[in-house]
């Protein structure tokens, strides 16, 4: 299936969707190239899930147009569905079926020639073989997630849509999951994945940041950091909490946020920030060092400017 996939897998323009009076997705445009891992970031309620649902035909956009795998998302949903694997945010396979039965069900729906064999192969590939006859409802979060990924990759889709696939999953399972995603992408599968985790965002080839239904920035991590034009200082030492409060009230400081033991202070005006660093650093117990902004700095800055809640 991958062979016939066009170069641009997702190409949408002006997607808009409202629920009642609330505009959940607002004039959203994006392009995703084949084989890319495209990260979808943004706070809760920013419209990530709604966008993904519009891409796979579960929701009808109020406005906008576009294609997914070369098929029109408004009229050719029947062509899109067989070629897309969609992993929902909430586990939505059958809890009262075993792992094997769930996989065989999916294989049959997608019309695979040998559903039993395909399910068996998937069980082995996913390392689920010794749990094959366990009911899905009894699985822990990590195994459920693995099963869900197995189910949506089973029919050999050309595009994977993963909606916060690693929410509530332990770090080891998260890492395994991402190894698998990168492995799949290397084989030519395109992956659109929404996440809250910065380390996951950094494993994406491209990312898009969405807030309040609007796509604010997109590109590679380097591009996004560069375009943000932020200057950043990293402050270490005692009494950082107090300092944070003071810095937030200081004009010229766009963002001041604690990352573990270090305080990241960012501003768009580099020379002004240099001056602030000098003023605050002189004679103070903290150490100010000029650093490169990280993706997280950029996002928190974006979010503050968009007036959104913290990530």
């Amino acid at each position, binding site marked *: 299936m991958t062979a016939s996939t066009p170069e641009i897998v997702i190409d949408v323009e002006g997607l808009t969707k409202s629920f009642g009076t609330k505009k959940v997705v607002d004039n959203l445009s994006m392009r995703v190239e084949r084989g890319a891992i495209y990260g979808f970031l943004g706070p809760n309620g920013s419209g990530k899930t709604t966008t993904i*649902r519009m891409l*796979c*035909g*579960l*929701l*009808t956009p109020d406005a906008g147009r576009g294609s997914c795998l070369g098929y029109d998302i408004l009229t050719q949903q*029947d062509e899109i*569905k*067989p070629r*897309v694997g*969609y992993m*929902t945010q*909430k*586990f*939505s*396979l*059958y*809890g009262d079926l075993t792992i094997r039965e769930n996989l065989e069900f*999916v294989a049959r*729906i*997608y*019309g695979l020639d040998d559903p039993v064999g395909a399910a068996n192969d998937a069980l082995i590939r996913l390392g689920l073989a010794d749990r094959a006859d366990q009911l899905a409802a009894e699985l822990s979060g990590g195994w459920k997630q693995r099963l869900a990924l197995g*189910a949506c990759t089973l029919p050999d889709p050309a595009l994977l849509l993963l909606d916060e696939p690693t929410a509530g999953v332990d770090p080891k399972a998260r890492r395994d999951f991402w190894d698998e995603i990168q492995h799949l992408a290397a084989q030519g599968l395109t992956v659109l994945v929404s996440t809250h985790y910065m380390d996951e965002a950094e494993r994406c080839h491209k990312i898009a940041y969405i807030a309040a239904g609007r796509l604010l920035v997109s590109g590679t991590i380097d591009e996004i950091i560069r375009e943000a034009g932020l200057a950043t200082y990293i402050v270490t030492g005692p009494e950082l909490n107090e300092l944070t409060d003071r810095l937030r009230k200081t004009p010229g400081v766009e963002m001041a946020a604690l990352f573990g033991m270090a305080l990241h202070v960012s501003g768009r005006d580099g020379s002004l920030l240099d001056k602030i660093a000098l003023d605050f650093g002189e004679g103070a117990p903290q150490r100010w060092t000029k650093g490169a902004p990280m993706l997280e700095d950029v996002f928190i800055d974006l979010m503050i400017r968009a007036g959104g809640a913290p990530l």
Partner: protein
Amino acid sequence: MNPSKQAHKRFRAALQRLAAIFLKEFLQLRRDRGTMAMIVFIPLMQLMLFGYAINTDPKHLPTALLVQDDGPLARSVVAALRMTDYFAIERAAKSEEDADRMIRSNEVQFIIEIPPDFERRLVHGDKPAILLVADATDPTATVGAVAGANGAMAGALERELTGPLARLAQGAAPFELRVQARYNPAAEARRNIVPGLIGTILTMTMLIYTSLSVTKEIERGTMETLLAMPVRPVEIMLGKILPYVAVGAVQMTIILLVATLFFHVPIVGSLATLIPLTLLFIVANLSVGYTFSTLASNQMQAFQLSFIYFLPSMLLSGFLFPFRGMPNWAQDLGSILPLTHYLRIVRSVMLKGSGFSDLSMDTGALALFTLAAMYVAVTRFRQTLD
């Protein structure tokens, strides 16, 4: 703190928790608009419906007349029967076979047969017999009419038996009304009730199997995955209905075995008629249940819809009360329900030995109903989460 004060405090805390649950339930209930509407609608509708519809002494029952003597005396007897209000003599049978066919296919409830030479033999004092054949599969539907007919016979020929015939008016009636309660001569209620129960039980069980099938997927969240997969509404519907046809077949077997072995209800007709038509009825009910599950937005609503459907099925189908005793509007309403048609089918096949050709109307109605329910279900099925 003294013990009574402590007990008082514990009691107050319990009341407060109770109030918390009470309030929460009430808020949830109030938010479910469908349920709120049905709280008012169900009792109102059912009361109005059944209060007016049910009548255990049906009149104007369809009757076929087989006249082999068309003389004035015979006509007077027929007129007397008509006067009882029990018989709606609207069909004329050409022959005995024709009359039998009418009663087998439920076109008529009674046949009045006037024998040849009725008048001549009456005048001769031979006491000829008029035959009143009653379809007694439902004894309650015929008992009033038979009593009315007997009562009417005494004065039936009062006016005609004058002059030279006046001698016939003396003493006992110069003719006889012979009543033949066909199919259920001993008027056993169970012969009527047990086949009816087959239909009622299947309605109830089948409806429950499918009425939650879509709401369940929505409430468990599995609908999202299902909709994202390349599967069509018709496929989902048929895939969800068909397993229960097998379940229905098992239930049908159990019920038929019990009906014949324990209740000694005969199966006069052929199983080759009864089984396919019962399966059709099973599919009809499964389709209704499935349709409800696409109309309801949660399981509570699905249950209520099933209930709204079930009660008229019991009361307006002819299961508990004679169908022909109901006013026309109630009969029309009853004719929409699959159970009405299936009751005719199952009683006719089991007790009268009717075949496919006798039951084509009811079979057609069941099939039409099934298709209509499926059509509604498929068009109502929401293919997106919009």
